[in-house]
């Protein structure tokens, strides 16, 4: 029963929606977006992402770090200065 499922899981979906609200608006560079899609979501290696996006592997590495930093800032783990 879908309606029942929605009611039963209201708290979980609400929590996820609030979580997504926190991170949805984070602006990414195209390379960071590619890292999120291809490496984190699809599981490609950095080398594959670099090959696909026509950049160097170290650039992908940097993009990954800055992506994690942006998300960590939005979630309140670190401040803009990078401290916990």
């Amino acid at each position, binding site marked *: 029963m879908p309606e029942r499922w929605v009611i039963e899981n209201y708290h*979980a979906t609400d*929590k*996820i929606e*609030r*979580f*997504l609200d*926190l*991170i*949805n*608006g*984070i*602006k*990414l*560079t*195209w390379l960071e*977006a*590619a890292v*999120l*899609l*291809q490496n*984190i*979501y*699809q*599981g*490609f*290696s950095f080398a*594959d992402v670099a090959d*696909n*996006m*026509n950049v160097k592997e170290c650039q992908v590495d940097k993009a990954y770090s800055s992506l994690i930093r942006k*998300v960590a800032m*939005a*979630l*309140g*783990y670190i401040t803009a200065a990078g401290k916990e």
Partner: protein
Amino acid sequence: MARPEIALLDAAAQVSQQAEPNDHVNRFMRLALWIAGRNRNEAERAGIEWQDLQGTALLALVKASKTYSKSKAAAKGIPFKAYMSTAIKYEISDLLQKASLAHMPSRSVYNDVRSLTIAAAALQSRTESEHVTDKQLAEELGWTVEKVQKYQLYSRALLNYKELQQPLPGLEKDETLGDSLSDDTVDVEGEAIANVTIEAEGRWLAQATAELPPLARTAIILTFGLPVPSGVPSPTIGDVIRVALNQSASASRGLRQLREVRKNDRGDMPELGKQDTAVRFGGRKSPQAVGDEAAQRVAIEIFERYSSEPGAIPALQR
């Protein structure tokens, strides 16, 4: 405009056709340049420009035309064509040898390197063994082992330029190292044309993707790593999540539209018929990928654990 080397070849071809029978220089200019062209790759490896090689060949031709009438070859009835091609080959081989000499500290070092190579070959044939040790070589030449090792480095530096001409042990009798290696010919014009084509394609793709709906455009750019057109706003995490969850549909819609635009713009997109345009990366996904079912369960567990603990996600508590 053609490169000067190619322009010279064209000019020489014209001159050769119009030359008088006795005008050796003009008549065989094209042949001289052809011989120079045959040695082009080897000369490039020795750091000699093609133009310099052409110059050497032409100078050898002029020299040969001056000396031919008084030469023994003319007395024996050897035609000028054979005489001059031998002369040019000799000049070019001399040029290549001198180029390798330029990499040596002095002429005596160069001579020592040569005697080392000769001694190594002689020792190898005498002992009939595959390898000759440094110690054996040092005894043979009366040098110290350190000197042998140092000169072997010089010998390797010469290998690129000289040894290509010489027969190698282990290969067929008439075969040289140069024959056994494939020539890495540099097709400069071909590369330039390919680069221009890629640039033009890039510009076209940038324009064409700019007309797609935002999500399809993001999906296409991220999936295929296309150059990002200027003025396009950067994606947000929300965009990427939407692309990830609905990637096949977004990308295939984008591809379909691109194909139509391409057909209208250039007419060179073949009708591909019905096919599965879903973007797949079969076999390359790692088990750690979030898109994987097991990994999704892990991600949900982690999220539940973190989000249920008070203060685990600071921003969620605000």
